[in-house]
């Protein structure tokens, strides 16, 4: 336990009878970049707040660097947090903002020169040195985010907490910042919990993703694991774009399932024949021009152009429509018939309770 940067032990948080977080168990290793991913209201921000001390857990223990911090004041927890809205101090200059964490403790207050040096270092890292004399409201969104990062960096904390730090930025800036954050993490090597609802951020940045829903951990694993082997319907639906197709089906015995009139071969064992199942098919896994595999034929009833690809909607007479990504786009395909094939390993099976088979 002492090796973990952050360790959660049966942590729960409830407001009255409403459970926001239930029995949360997790260990974050030093240097790890852990992403908490989930829709809003899933409890991921609450977890950050409990680590930082803004909220107290209802039960369970939180350890930072091997020390139980449940009852420690936020100022003594040695964690730095970057907020979604940056939480810059509007009445202080950029320099004063970054310097603030160094000056709050009289006992450990560095000298003026040292303060200056450390602020400049932190500002250098996030490339904001030229803005030190400005006030926050004179900065752009991206610059503000950098200031917030610098303020977190400057005090050299054991743990970084980031609460949707990029969600207020426009798409382009978000791309840049994402890369810079990865670089920054690599450089500092500090354990980080990063909270987001954006799967792209999670997939690109995380060394480990913890997917949460309704206060519970749905799956924990590397980006590849959660994408390729989603543990349940929620994770499968939440991760991947376009969203996975879910079709009601039943087992046809052994490694085959029956969806409407179509029978598909699967890698996993579907169980005894007749067992009700849900199968998941990623739109990106469908192949148009291959003869082999599980073929599904139907009529193209819609085609949405997205740039390089098109998302086509296929009516194959099954329980629901099927959306498939297709490279290239031709308007006149609407109304024509098409056949799509799926490799058996790309057919995800979920049991009645939504758990992966």
């Amino acid at each position, binding site marked *: 336990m002492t090796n973990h940067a952050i360790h959660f*032990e049966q942590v729960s948080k409830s407001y009255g009878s409403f459970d926001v977080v239930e029995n949360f168990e997790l260990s974050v290793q030093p240097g790890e970049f852990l992403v908490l991913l989930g829709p809003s209201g899933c409890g991921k921000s609450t977890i950050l707040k409990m680590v930082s001390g803004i909220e*107290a857990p209802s*039960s369970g*223990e939180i350890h930072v660097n091997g020390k139980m911090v449940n*009852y420690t004041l936020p100022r003594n927890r040695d964690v730095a947090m970057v907020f979604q809205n940056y939480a810059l101090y509007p009445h202080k200059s950029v320099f004063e903002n970054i310097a603030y964490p160094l000056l709050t403790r009289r006992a450990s207050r560095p000298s003026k020169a040292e303060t200056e040096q450390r602020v400049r270092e932190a500002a250098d890292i996030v490339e904001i040195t030229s803005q030190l004399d400005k006030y926050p409201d004179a900065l752009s969104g991206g610059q503000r985010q950098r200031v917030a990062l610098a303020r977190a960096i400057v005090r050299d904390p054991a743990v970084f907490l980031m609460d949707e730090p990029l969600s207020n930025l426009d798409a382009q800036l978000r791309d840049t910042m994402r890369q810079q954050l990865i670089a920054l993490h690599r450089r500092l090597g500090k354990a980080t919990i990063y909270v987001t609802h954006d799967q792209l951020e999670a997939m690109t940045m995380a060394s480990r993703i913890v997917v949460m829903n309704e206060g519970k951990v749905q799956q924990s694993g590397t980006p590849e694991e959660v994408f390729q082997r989603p543990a349940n319907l929620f994770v499968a639906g939440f991760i991947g774009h376009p969203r996975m197709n879910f079709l009601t089906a039943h087992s046809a015995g052994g490694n085959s399932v029956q969806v409407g009139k179509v029978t598909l071969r699967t890698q996993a064992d579907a169980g005894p024949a007749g067992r009700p199942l849900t199968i998941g098919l990623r739109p990106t896994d469908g192949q148009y021009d291959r003869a082999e595999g599980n073929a599904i034929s139907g009529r193209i009833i819609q085609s949405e152009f997205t740039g390089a690809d098109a998302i086509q909607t296929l009516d194959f007479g099954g329980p629901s429509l099927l959306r498939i990504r297709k490279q290239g786009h031709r308007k006149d395909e609407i109304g024509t018939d098409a056949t799509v094939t799926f490799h058996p390993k790309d057919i995800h099976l979920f049991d009645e309770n939504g758990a992966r088979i």
Partner: protein
Amino acid sequence: MLSTTEHRKLRLKARIRQNLTAYAFLAPALIFFVLFLAWPVVALLIQSFQTGGIMSPAKYVGLENWRQTFTDPLVVKSIRNTVVYSLMAIPAVFIIAMILALSLNTVRFGQNTFKTIIYYPTLQPILLAALMFTFVLHQDFGILNIILRAITGEPVNFLGNRNLALPTIAMVEVWKGAGFWTLLFLAGIQSLPRDLYHAAELDGAGPGRRFFQLTLPLLKPTFFFSFIFATIVNLQIFDSVFVLTDGGPVNATVTTTWYIYRSLFTFNEPGYGATLSFVLVILVLALTAVQTILFRERR
């Protein structure tokens, strides 16, 4: 993991620390609050069962003061006058302040100058306001009567007429108070979201409709605060009555606070004054509560 008991102990410690911090911040305000507000209210209640107490020792008289309160016609009259006064002064000052706020909001140049001039009377102690109105209301030299005489030929007896004295007091208070409410309403208007107005204008809503369908409903929180605050302040009307009419003529301007003052200091009856004070506290609390409920329901 620590045991539940240990957790409970630690949690209690954290709670105590949290409460100590909060109460350290609250302490100065609480001390003054208890000493100079809560305790005096309790003392009022005690005094209402006593007589004497200022120069001679207090004596317990049971319900005598309360009995007297409910049989004293002047008490009824003072409450009536106070309420009637508020019913005149509050709507008048609100309507005037709203017109002024809308006007200030319309003009482009000189806004600050007008604001300052309109606010100026609010800064004056009512004693000085009353002194000025001695001039303004004078039957021969007062500007009001100079104008009225030019129109009707007869000066108006503002403070001597039983039916006009209370409205005249209200007029002085409106003169003094309009600036305050104007600025309050103006601040309210200016903090309304601009987009809504653009949208309304695109929808073809004229200034009148924009005012009644957007401005007024959006200012509801401001009005709520204003009504409560105005009620509390106006039900305590004292200074202008004291200076301008001293309750006359024929008790037409006797207000509750004026009567409290008279009982305490002119008649040396602190017990009776305390009883009346308590009646006033209850009256103000009741009216404020009614207003709060009405506003909450409509919201």
